[in-house]
């Protein structure tokens, strides 16, 4: 019997794994590979992904489907594997549908450009939607293991701030004050604000000079609508946050050895540590391995031009191997004593099918 270590223990013990990291580091692939391994080992696993590469999506049967779980047949596996695409924009639209009963009003909201912009720009809302879906699936309890692939941005952890930001909208007394009927329609109605101190008058006049009352009125209506839509938001956000802090959750950071990606990984690491989320470790993907070959390995019997080119390539490769080694040691130095540090070598092509994922798992679960 082999000893269960590192990621093997993680997929055995955890019920939720969240993969974070910057774009282009192979986060989606890593999440899929982890879910696959768990399924191979007998768990009922699901990978939730935001935007998989087209060929990987096809391989997993996600290209034709909306956001419902889909089983990926694994002949001979002890467990089962599911995949699901998270369409965060649709989740947001659905939230409106749920809260605004009047179809005409709904249509006017969907068509409002200001609203369209706002809904996509509310900090962390998409990320938050992903988390809410995760929470929903967890509560339903159909799966042993949920693996979530977060959006590929530095904002991926902004959902942690989302509750606070939303409270600012819904609990904003300035907003309520703005929303007093007739406030924006003219000077006469402002006289009605007699109870409010002089400072408020000043604030209003500044806003008027900058943007005009009619716009402010529209804006506050939008904000109030959002506030209304987000009813119960705070409670749900709280529940999601509590779930993410449970010890059966594990945060994994996926990175490549490029200096930008490493900086991002360390930034995420700090955020995770600040928020006291259960961190399990780093996966460094696409690593050039040192010591693969040297100039002496290039055979003598080749044409001179080719020999020189090959020697050049071996040197080029060694340079990148050096760079990667430095990056990994920086990560180890800065990232403290994480339970898991896995490196995956750079593969020749894109990983875009189950065999590719299995090849990755030879390294992830070595």
């Amino acid at each position, binding site marked *: 019997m082999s000893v269960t270590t590192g990621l093997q223990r993680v997929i055995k013990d955890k019920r939720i794994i969240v993969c974070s990291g910057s774009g282009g580091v192979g986060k989606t692939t890593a999440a899929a590979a982890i879910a696959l391994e768990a399924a191979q080992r007998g768990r009922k696993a699901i990978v939730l992904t935001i935007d998989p590469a087209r060929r990987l999506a096809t391989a997993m049967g996600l290209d034709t489907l909306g956001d419902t779980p889909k089983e990926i047949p694994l002949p001979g596996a002890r467990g089962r594997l599911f995949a699901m695409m998270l369409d965060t924009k649709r989740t947001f639209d659905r939230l409106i549908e749920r809260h605004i009963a009047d179809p005409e009003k709904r249509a006017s909201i969907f068509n409002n450009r200001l609203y369209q912009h706002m809904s996509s720009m*509310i900090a962390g809302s998409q990320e938050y939607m992903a988390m809410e879906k995760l929470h929903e699936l967890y509560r339903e309890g159909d799966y042993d293991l949920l693996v979530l692939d977060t959006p590929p941005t530095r904002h991926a952890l902004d959902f942690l701030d989302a509750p606070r930001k939303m409270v600012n909208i819904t609990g904003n007394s300035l907003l309520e004050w703005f929303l007093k009927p007739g406030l924006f329609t003219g000077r006469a109605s402002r006289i009605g604000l007699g109870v409010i101190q002089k400072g408020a008058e000043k604030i209003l006049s500044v806003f008027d*000079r900058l943007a005009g009352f009619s716009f402010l009125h529209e804006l506050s209506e939008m904000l109030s609508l959002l506030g209304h839509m987000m009813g119960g938001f705070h409670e749900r956000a709280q529940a999601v946050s509590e779930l993410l802090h449970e010890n059966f959750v594990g945060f994994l950071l996926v990175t490549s050895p490029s200096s930008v990606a490493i900086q991002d990984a360390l930034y995420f690491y700090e955020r995770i540590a600040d928020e006291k989320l259960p961190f399990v470790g780093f996966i460094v993907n696409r690593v050039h391995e040192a010591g693969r070959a040297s100039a002496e390995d290039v055979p003598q019997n080749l044409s001179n031009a080719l020999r020189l080119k090959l020697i050049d390539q071996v040197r080029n490769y060694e340079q990148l191997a050096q760079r990667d080694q430095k990056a990994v040691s920086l990560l180890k130095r800065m990232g403290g004593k994480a339970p898991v540090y896995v490196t995956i070598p750079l593969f020749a092509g894109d990983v875009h099918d189950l065999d590719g994922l299995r090849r990755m798992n030879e390294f992830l679960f070595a």
Partner: protein
Amino acid sequence: MVNTKLPLDALLRRRLVFVSGKGGVGKTTVSLALGLIAAQRGKKTLIAEINSEEQIAHLLEHSPIGYEETELVAGLKGLWGINIEPKRSFEEYVLLQIKFRQLYKAVFQNKYVRHFIDATPGLADLMCIGKIYSLVDAYDLVIVDAPATGHGIALLEISSIVANAVRVGPLRTEADKIDQLLHDPVRTQVVLVTLPEEMPVTEAVEMNQSLQERLKVPMGPVFLNQFHTDSFTASEKKELQKLTQKPSRPGLSKIVELQLTRSELSREYLQRLKEEIPDRPILTVPFIFSPHFGLSELETMAGVMENQGERP
């Protein structure tokens, strides 16, 4: 025959260049390489990051740049940088409008007003783009290292949204002016950066479409970054095939296989870009083999980019 030198010249004749694309494709390095080329041609050039974690300072081993315009490279005149913070831009803009710092303090340090402003989506974007607008006159060329995909589009779109939503007032006037600049093909070009990989290319194609059709901003060339040139001739490849089949040197075979696949993928994705973005020039930016990426690597990159079109 397409002269590939022209697109770069045409690009650097603008006053404002937006460098956009998916996260991790090298927008910052391409922005800097373009900045180096422009500065070497004698243009006073500013590279603007938006609310960034000081990537440029990190790359150039410079102290954090922050909100004050700063010269980036000792010994190279005319290359400047700024890291635009929306909060600072907001303060600057409002002060310009209401003129009195006391009044600003009274109004905008109010807790409720702060919350309202933080909660107003798009305001930060509008303030950033407004700041960029105000910088264009002071430089020959402003290069914006724009945020990734969706956020980058939002930045280019916010002025027209505000122009539509606000009927009168200084905000409207400002938004109109910005929108005119962004849509003026003489002054502005938006360029995309991508990599020879599936996701970045797909995203570049989609982004090109929304920028061109929905936002209707003037588009410049597409930069295919980290491009691997095929260095072997056909007969050399045959020789190599024999070599990679020999199990005696597995390490060497792997390296050769990797390089062959990369140059093949580079060629494939270049072809795909040419097919799917047929009306734009596609310029390749070489992959730089180096254990460290800093100023000298950027200069190498810029050199290759400049000479790319100099074919007989």
